[in-house]
């Protein structure tokens, strides 16, 4: 673990340097803009790749509007010959999808709020207080990235059961609050905040916690949004935790429910297609509203959770 500790500081530095450089590269970019010509072959290549990436999803979504009889009738056509919402309606009503949707939303929203808040607290403490305790905990957080849930499935189940969290949404929410990525994101951000700000607040007599809540938390808003979106995506799409924790179908989340449809002996494709497309929608919506926080984020640390 100790050797791995060398990674994030380097990454943090990179991020900080990157921020400082943005202004400079902006100028250089404008200088270059004038003489760089648009290249047709490169543009063509780019859009060919875009088409390849878009196709599986496009084909999937268009298929979900086809009636069951058309799904398997050769020759297949790209555009549905007959448009229908039957698959969506069946998924929503027959499979109790509304309930799964609600469960998933509950888990994703509550966990995200908690993750963002506690990651901010921890990240700030790790960045601005340098003592044995915080240094040790930093290494501990690093260690968690080496011990993914996948490696401790059975013992995790035992812990969840012994805590009385088995078969409840709390069993998914509570263990998911601590994420190394969230803590690292905030730590890196707060490392770039000048200590002077902290010192002057102290001289003005502000208490340590007041400094955090009144000054530091508000200025970390961009990171806050970025982590919120990442966390929402992780929890919405999470499969392993719900799989271990939930047993009763009434608590199922979307991913577990989808898995049970696709794992069936005879897959009900019209329902599966409809259900899958519905499950993607909320994230697409969130993404298009907040995309700048994702696409422009100076993401560095292990943001995959």
């Amino acid at each position, binding site marked *: 673990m100790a050797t791995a500790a060398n990674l994030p500081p380097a990454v943090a530095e990179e991020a900080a340097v990157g921020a400082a450089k943005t202004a400079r590269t902006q100028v250089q970019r404008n200088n270059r803009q004038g003489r760089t010509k648009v290249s047709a072959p490169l543009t063509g290549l780019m859009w060919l790749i875009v088409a390849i*990436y878009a196709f599986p999803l496009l084909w999937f979504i268009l298929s979900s509007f086809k009636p069951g009889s058309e799904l398997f009738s050769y020759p297949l056509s790209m555009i549905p010959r007959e448009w229908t919402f039957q698959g969506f309606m069946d998924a929503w009503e027959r499979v109790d999808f509304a309930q799964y949707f609600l469960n998933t939303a509950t888990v994703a929203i509550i966990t995200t709020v908690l993750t963002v808040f506690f990651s901010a607290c921890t990240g700030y403490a790790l960045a601005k207080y340098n003592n*044995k305790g915080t240094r040790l*905990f930093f290494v501990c957080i690093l260690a968690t990235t080496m011990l993914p849930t996948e490696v401790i499935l059975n013992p995790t189940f035992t812990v969840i059961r012994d805590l009385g969290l088995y078969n409840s949404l709390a069993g998914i929410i509570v263990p998911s609050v601590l994420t190394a990525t969230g803590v690292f994101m905030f730590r890196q951000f707060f490392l770039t905040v000048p200590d002077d700000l902290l010192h002057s607040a102290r001289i003005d007599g502000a208490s340590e916690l007041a400094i955090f809540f009144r000054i530091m938390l508000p200025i970390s808003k961009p990171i806050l949004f970025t982590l919120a979106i990442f966390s929402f995506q992780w929890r919405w799409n999470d499969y392993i935790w719900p799989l271990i924790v939930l047993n009763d179908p009434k608590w199922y989340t979307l991913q577990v429910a989808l898995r049970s449809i696709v794992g069936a002996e005879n897959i009900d494709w019209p329902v599966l297609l409809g259900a899958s497309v519905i499950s993607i929608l909320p994230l697409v919506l969130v993404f298009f509203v907040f995309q700048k926080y994702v696409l422009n984020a100076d993401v560095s640390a292990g943001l995959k959770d």
Partner: protein
Amino acid sequence: MTNPTMSSTVTPETLRTGGPVRSKSQLKRRNRYVIAPLILIGVNVVLFLVFFVWPGALGLIYSFTDYRGVGRLNFIGLANFQKLFADSSFYAALSRTFLYTVLSVPLTYVSSLGVAALLTSKAVRGRTAAKIVIFLPWLISPIVVGVIWKWLFGQDFGFVNFVISLVGGNPVPWSSNGNLALAVVIFAAAWGGTAFNMLLFIAALKNIPEALLEAAELDGASAWQRFRNVTLPGIAPTSFMVILLSTIHAMKEFPMIQALTNGGPGTENTLIVQYIYKTGFEQAKVGYASAASMVLMVVLLAIALIQLRFNRKKA
């Protein structure tokens, strides 16, 4: 925890130079430098102990027992590990996982870097729209990624086989041939994994000083030479991170393959996490599965250490 020597924010020098009154107020301040961060990290410390240390230790203990989910722990020494190293299905799962990793990581790396390079090149039109489209798979859960590719590569009903039959070919057994099924899983992994790594690469590529690239261009370096000798070394830390993260991610691949092939055909493409899940939960051999988990953990650690060392040597 309130022991003043714990804090290093105030150096001993400043203490010694201050008078007795001052050092008393400094003592108070030092205390709050210890207590405040403790309050801030408190919840996460508890979560860390309960959901990492506890299951981690439990897993280690389980791996030396024949625990089956109920009853008392019965220690059997290294028997689980001995059995594991003689278990051909364990080797099959482990080697299949290695194969999957070795094939999918380079593909993901090349596609993410290629896309990122195109997206940061000023010679390309419509980069913002392209970026959004290529990023979309990030929003899609591994389960649904599996479903999407299962639908696309369905043996009897998939679009790909339909096109192959249109141009006169025979339908390809995408799900009944083990290697072809693995190939589909690899494509799906690259499709789903590109988006995020692409973001990392875009950030790294933007940080390469344009002056360096311009100087190389003036010296007559071709586009490929510039990429090879300026860009690639410039993004080495990011490359390292992407490869490390993708490797670890691939080693513990589980949901996507569950939806796509469920380890099939048969158990041919059962990867290691799926093997652990099957033995640990479906067959309730908790001790045995924990031993397999320990092996996986050691492998993950080894990968991280090897890559870290490799990275150091290069730097």
